[in-house]
C-alpha cells in the first residue's frame, strides 16, 4: 500500500532526473533543502529525523543529490523525503515536501476503533510496520 504523504505521492516514484529538476527549482527560488527519514509512516508523525543539516548554502542540485545518495545508502529501507523551506518574511514555512525513497514492502494501515461512553467510537489509524520495534520494521 503506497504511502500517499506529501507532494507527488500519487504519481509513480520520481527517478533521479526528476528529483534533480525539482531540487533545481527549489534552489532557483532560494529555498533551503533538507532531507528527512523515518520508519514510522503514521500520517500524524510530523517529526521525521533529519539527515545532516538543512542545506542553506548549496548552489547546485548535485550537492543535494550526493547527500540523498548517502542517505539512501545509510537507510535503504526507510522512508526518505526532501523538504524545501522558504524563509521569506511572512512565509517561513515549507514550500515543497515530497517522498523520494520508500521501503520495498509497505504493509499499510489498519483502522482502530475505540468505543467510549455511550458507544461513541473514536477512530485512529495504526501502521502495521510499527508492530515491530524500531530498526526491524522494514
Amino acid at each position: 500500500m503506497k504511502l500517499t504523504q506529501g507532494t507527488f505521492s500519487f504519481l509513480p516514484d520520481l527517478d533521479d532526473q526528476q528529483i534533480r529538476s525539482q531540487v533545481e527549482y527549489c534552489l532557483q527560488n532560494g529555498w533551503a533543502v533538507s532531507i528527512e527519514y523515518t520508519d514510522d509512516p503514521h500520517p500524524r508523525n510530523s517529526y521525521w529525523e533529519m539527515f545532516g543539516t538543512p542545506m542553506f548554502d548549496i548552489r547546485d542540485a548535485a550537492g543535494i543529490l550526493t547527500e540523498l545518495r548517502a542517505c539512501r545508502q545509510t537507510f535503504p529501507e526507510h522512508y526518505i523525503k526532501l523538504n524545501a523551506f522558504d524563509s521569506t518574511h511572512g512565509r517561513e514555512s515549507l514550500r515543497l515536501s515530497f517522498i523520494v525513497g520508500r521501503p520495498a514492502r509497505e504493509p499499510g494501515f489498519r483502522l482502530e476503533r475505540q468505543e467510549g461512553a455511550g458507544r461513541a467510537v473514536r477512530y485512529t489509524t495504526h501502521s502495521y510496520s510499527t508492530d515491530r520495534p524500531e530498526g526491524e520494521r522494514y
Partner: protein
Amino acid sequence: MPVASGGIHAGQMHQLLHYLGEDVVLQFGGGTIGHPMGIAAGAAANRVALEAMVLARNEGRDIWNEGPDILVKAARHCAPLRAALDVWGEITFNYESTDTPDFVPTATAAA
C-alpha cells in the same frame, strides 16, 4: 487566498494552475462526485492531475501549451484520470456570457 469552484474539472488543471498559481483553494464539487468511477476515483483523478501539472511546471515546462499532453501522459498511469478526461475533457469555459440577451426585440403596441 483565491478560491476556484463551480464546474472546474481535472482536464482544466493547466489553466487553473496558470491563472491562479499554487496558493489557491480548488474546489472540485461535480468534478469529484460526478466521476464515473465513483467519488474516491474522482478525488484521485484530481490529485494526480494537479501533481502532474505542478511537477511539469517546476521542471520549467510550458504548462499553458503542453497542459493537455501532460494530462494525457499522466492518465496513462491513472485510470480515474483517464476516465475524467474522457468524460469532461472537452468542456471549457468558452461560452456566451449569460448576460447576453437571448431574445430579439419585436415590435409592441407601445413602441
